[in-house]
């Protein structure tokens, strides 16, 4: 049987602020496998956003390390390359550039990858059509609703065809109807594109729609389990991997102490 290798593995990571006065993460280990659908739950200040920031390389752990496909990520240069090619990030506040149209915001993520302006334009258009914004390409963020802005952000995060999609409270600024639609879209993309999705939320209902639930409290993972609603067996075998991850904190062989 082929050994399952985590896409990303957070290895005993701590994160403190204010010179150690505030401990956001206290030795967290978590593995995410290709095709996983993971909800990270927790109250405000529990450390879930710190964890996802560290998983995207936007923040640096105080101690511990993050391993991408069995290779530790050493510096911001390596993280930048990962964000450019393997990791997509979606933020609660959408974080679109206000001076650029929806299309240009998505094109931004395609710049510097060797594609011509025409190719970038075509790809960005395709992504926006995929998230249902084909008729809103030339609109500035200020002319879009909250749900539409988040769709633009999702299209932007998919521009590099990521293996891992990190969503930090993607529905936090949306009404329930829009939140539902955005989660539908993310889960659909996760299923159809085989992207691993890690979604931070404090909404138990939305979390229940993910196969795996990770609960954080006071900077520690207190629960990592499969949801009741999750299919017993999926085509990619993700639930089985999640169970394994839960049992062992998903430490890949490469990271276990050598005998």
């Amino acid at each position: 049987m082929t050994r399952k290798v985590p896409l990303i593995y957070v290895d005993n990571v701590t994160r403190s602020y204010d010179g150690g006065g505030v401990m956001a993460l206290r030795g967290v280990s978590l593995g995410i496998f290709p095709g996983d659908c993971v909800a990270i739950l927790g109250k405000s200040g529990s450390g879930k956003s710190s964890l996802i920031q560290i998983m995207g390389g936007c923040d640096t752990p105080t101690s511990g390390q993050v391993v991408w496909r069995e290779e530790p990520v050493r510096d911001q240069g390596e993280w930048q390359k990962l964000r450019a090619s393997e990791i997509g990030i979606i933020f609660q506040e959408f974080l679109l550039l206000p001076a650029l149209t929806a299309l240009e915001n998505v094109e931004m993520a395609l710049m510097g990858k060797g594609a011509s302006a025409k190719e970038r334009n075509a790809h960005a258009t395709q992504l926006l059509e995929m998230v249902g914004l084909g008729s809103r390409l030339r609109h500035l963020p200020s002319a879009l609703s909250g749900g539409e802005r988040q769709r633009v952000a999702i299209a932007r995060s998919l521009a590099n065809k990521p293996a891992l999609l990190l969503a930090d409270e993607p529905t936090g600024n949306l009404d329930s109807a829009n939140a539902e639609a955005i989660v539908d879209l993310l889960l659909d993309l996760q299923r159809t594109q085989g992207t691993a999705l890690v979604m931070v939320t404090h909404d138990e209902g939305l979390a229940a729609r993910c196969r795996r639930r990770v609960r954080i409290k006071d900077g520690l993972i207190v629960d990592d389990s499969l949801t009741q609603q999750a299919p017993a067996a999926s085509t990619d075998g993700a639930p089985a991997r999640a169970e394994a991850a839960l049992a062992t904190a998903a430490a890949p062989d490469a990271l276990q102490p050598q005998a």
Partner: protein
Amino acid sequence: MNLVTLALRNLQRRAARTAIVSISVGLAVASALSLIALSNSVERGSGEGMDERGGDLVVISRNASDIFSSFIAEDKQKQLAAIPGVAEVSGELAMFAPVDKDQQKLVTALSSESYFWRRMPMAKGRAPTPADRRVVVLGVDSSEALHKNVGDTINVYDENFTVIGVTKYQSAINRSMVYMLLPDLQEIAFRQKQVTMFQVKLQPNFTPATVAAVRAEIAKLGSLTASPTDQLLQHDRNLLVMKAISQSVSMIALSMGGLSVLNALLMAVQERTREIGIMMAIGWSKARTMASIVLEGMLIGVAGCAAGIPLSYFICRLFEHMPTIGGILSFEPTIDMILPTLLVSVVLCGLGALYPASRAARMSPSDALRRP
């Protein structure tokens, strides 16, 4: 979309600030260009004037720091005329002199036999003959500035002279000149038997070898040096000082333009910290993030040049209306002045943007994204 579009959008978002910074860069460019045009016009104007009058070489004292401090004995003319390859020699005494009490004019005195009189293009009247005394020929601009015409009298060093002709030279320096006979100026300026320079006309179809040989022969005559007309002022100490001052002030002006770009972009980076965090979060490299900000600075430089170049032409027109210099020189920024200024300006604006850009690129994405 590309980096230029992004930079333009960011500049357009803060249109008033972009306009103000571009204007300040434009003023710096205009100041620099006008100063350079001012210093170059002296050299260019003198060369044009001498070329128009048809000399090939100009002989001055070797130790003279500038053309007006050159004193040469008039009788050197015979020795110069005897050098093989020389066709004609004309001694000139040149100085700024008070004309009609309150106007300083460049007065050039030539002997009545000078070949310049024969070549002088006359708009009105005639050139002097050996029999004439106390007569002048005016350049057309002098004629207009002094409101004098053929038959009128002008006063030079408290002596009256009759205007017998008006020239139609084209170059600014010749148009503004007052020409008189050599003995008259030597007498009224107490410069008996002296000239400032000799203009040397070479034999037709001379070669560079001829020029070199004649210059070598002239050098043998003692403390004299001969230069082609376009190189006459290359070693003029006053002009060199003026050029150095102009260039220094120009660099200061352009640096201030660069500093205003630095200031504006530093503010822009502070305001757009979060946006820079977004760029990093979507995988933009430090180099690309920096390039987008440096490009903004360079675009301000280009906009500043677009405003500054026409402004420099306007300032040069103002110079031409200044009584002390306007009647003597013509000021015009030329392409060989504009291109280096444009280049320096854009580079300085880019350098001004470099510090804000590097500050932006040093931020961690999470720090940048946490900013309001």
